[in-house]
């Protein structure tokens, strides 16, 4: 199992993994020893190897979400040693490598914990609440065709760059998992800011923020008390500035509401 670095010594670890059959059964932490882990492995590859062993022994492998394994799809979502996406800052679970752990370590792996993210099985949670918040208003109302030329409305580079920064949210849910209130403010604020910044998004900015925040409350996410834990754990560095922006947008929208429905 040695990797590209000839000096890297394989490690032996103990994993404590949350096992839960389905939404309706209680779960528990189960210990698994893993041997000969190469420091060059990614965290998920380490779980792959463990799962191979489990399957051969006729035990159920550990279920976890993942797809791109490049830090961009937002599927992976492990709570590792009490931290969303593990110990490295600015890193998704799939981008985390075993070289950040030591021989003999015990590693606890849990799912995101939030009332709005019920566990489907083991480490797989239901994040569909996020999709519903986006459906409540995370868009600009244009149909395909009949739009102006792309260069008709110039957008200052600084504004475009800021909108881009907010738009890079990968919808992973680490912000919610990291927050003691399980608030979704950072996630919602990223979308609200992106669209409020762009000239194309201005027409609907008031209804958008009202509707998205309302849906966030319906989904059962907690209130934001400004602890900043979300931004500290966000793998793509979505900034707290966005939450301030959301607050301003929301106050203005409420004061001059255009929501007739």
């Amino acid at each position, binding site marked *: *199992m*040695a*990797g*590209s670095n000839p000096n890297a010594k394989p490690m032996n670890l103990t994993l404590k993994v949350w096992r839960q059959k*389905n939404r309706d059964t209680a779960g528990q932490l189960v210990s698994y020893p893993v041997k000969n882990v*190469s*420091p060059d*492995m*990614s965290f*998920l590859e*380490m779980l792959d190897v463990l799962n*191979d062993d489990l*399957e*051969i022994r*006729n*035990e*159920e*492998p550990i279920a976890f*979400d993942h*797809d*791109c*394994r*490049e830090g*961009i*799809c*937002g599927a992976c979502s492990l709570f590792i040693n009490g931290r969303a996406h593990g110990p490295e800052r600015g890193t998704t679970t799939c981008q985390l*490598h075993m070289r950040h752990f030591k021989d003999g370590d015990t590693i606890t792996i849990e799912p995101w914990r939030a009332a709005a993210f019920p566990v*489907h099985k083991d480490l797989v949670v239901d994040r*569909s609440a*996020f*999709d519903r918040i*986006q*459906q*409540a*208003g*995370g*868009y*600009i*109302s*244009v*149909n*395909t065709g009949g739009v*102006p*030329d*792309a*260069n008709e*409305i*110039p957008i*200052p*580079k600084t504004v*475009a*760059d800021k*909108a*881009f920064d907010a*738009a*890079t949210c990968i*919808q992973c849910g680490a912000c919610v998992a990291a927050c003691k209130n399980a608030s979704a403010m950072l996630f919602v604020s990223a979308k609200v800011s*992106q*669209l409020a910044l762009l000239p*194309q998004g201005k027409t609907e900015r008031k209804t958008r923020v009202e509707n998205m925040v309302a849906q966030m409350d319906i989904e059962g996410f907690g209130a934001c008390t400004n602890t900043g834990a979300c931004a500290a754990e966000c793998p793509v560095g979505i900034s707290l500035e966005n939450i301030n922006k959301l607050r301003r947008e929301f106050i203005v929208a409420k004061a001059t509401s255009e929501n007739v429905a």
Partner: protein
Amino acid sequence: MILDSKIPEGPVAEKWDKHKFNVKLVNPANKRKYDIIVVGTGLAGASAAATLGELGYNVKAFCFQDSPRRAHSIAAQGGINAAKNYQNDGDSVYRLFYDTVKGGDYRSREANVYRLAQVSVNIIDQCVAQGVPFARDYGGLLANRSFGGAQVSRTFYARGQTGQQLLLGAYSALNRQVAYGKVKVFPRTEMLDLVMVDGKARGIVTRNLITGKIESHSAHAVILATGGYGNVFFLSTNAMGSNTTAAWRAYKKGALFANPCFTQIHPTCIPVSGEYQSKLTLMSESLRNDGRVWVPKTVEIAERLRKGEISVNDIGEADRDYFLERKYPAFGNLVPRDVASRNAKLACDEGRGVGSTGLAVYLDFADAIKRDGQAAIAAKYGNLFEMYAKITDENPYERPMRIYPAVHYTMGGLWVDYNLMTTIPGLYAAGECNFSDHGANRLGASALMQGLADGYFVIPYTIGDYLAKMPYDKVPTDHPAFREAEQAVIDKNNQLLSIQGTRTVDSFHKELGLIMWEHCGMARNEEGLRFAKQEIRRIREAFWSDVKVTGVGEELNQTLERANRVADFIELAELMVDDAQNRNESCGGHFREESQTPENEALRDDENYAYVAAWEFTGVGNEPRLHKEDLEFENVKLTQRSYK
């Protein structure tokens, strides 16, 4: 069966407009009487579903991820082409058309490619209107970069995350239709079969990936936008879940599969580090603008390097072989993807590869850093250097990157006519899962363009022509055709679960991948292909007698999901080998060793192979039937590519 591409008459530049005028329309009030299924929510599927919803159809959209926004399109980095000519550097619809046909090594359909170039300009307008934050210059207008295979700057981008931003645009349009009740999205739902009634596609059978429930969905037409099949090689730059199952099961129901052996190997990926490797990470093509590719001049030096006796910075200029610059002085490190990949493989086959495995070459930025300064290089490639460091634990500012080619994209796919309809009436294919526009080689930044062209601007028109001739009647899901398909899916799952053999699904997938990589990868020859075919058949038999799938069908079971996908990959692999064997010429990404120039360059054979090879299923283990669609070139003159 006669393949009718339904290419409209007339000059290439007028075909699409004429066709749009000639197709039948569904009256706005009647659109709500039709149901359309869209499988896949990547760029092609999300854009199609949203647009069809806007038009008034009832749409059901499916994906296997937990959210439509996680489709593999999200991972595309570099950019999207469009013939906007904003840079005033001589670009035009015609030039984009020409570059794409040439880049595809003259194995694509002129009419389709021309239409693609035409609608490319609308895509950018659409995305900007949706709020896609493309890169801009200081004047506030859109910025462009250049990509391989083009002499103009026509690539629009959003830092290194273009696919993400485009997909989020399409996802937002989709969400808006969900809010309006015109689209219903089924995440974590996998299509496992196509249902046909009276010879027409009328629905699908799916598995709910959370509950395991097998369900039927009925519609008047079905669109597959399920992406590419690069994961047949096990290791590729595709996401872990990317698979061929939807397309393959449609093939088994009678849709023809075109040019399956046309795969693209990307030259600059991070090399394999160990047996546990689960996927490969792409390092953008743009790096070759400043990086120099080299290996040690001799096998001896390479060996000492691999053993760790010397380090890369001990190797002097005189002992380095910048093989691309040496062999291709005109293009140097910027030769097209297939040429760069093949030459890296050649160097490693000679024993001059680097890294502990010997399967890597260097991509060296030392000269560029000396010339432009580290800050300038960091500004251009900072995020890529960071990603490289994260994965390899090496600092590319101090020592050259190690790179190796990896499977990246599949040009082959379901055969479609000009309307993007497969050979099954009512079954359409869009995006990477069809074969249509890239011939034997895709140019960088053209897949995103094609996916959105198909979904926003082509299918919404062409599907109306079909539906206008369909009665409104719905087929109930208790129709025998649905019942039979459901039973077949259940039986197949039960069979997989009951084998209880000794080997994991992944072990078969890895074994298959190695065979394909060795014999149907960067270079192919008759003997190797014959051997691969036998091996694949052996793997298929072993799989169906010795695979171990744990758990049960009626719950979340990721092993069962993979088992279904791998079973289909094994069958597809055989078809790829058949196709590669049939095509005894080299073109684009398909290099047949028997067909090369004295300088070892790819040699096309237009006399005998200027056709699309479309294969018909005749039963597992039987020889598939070949149908040929002859390609006619009325606008572009065929020439041999040369990059010397």
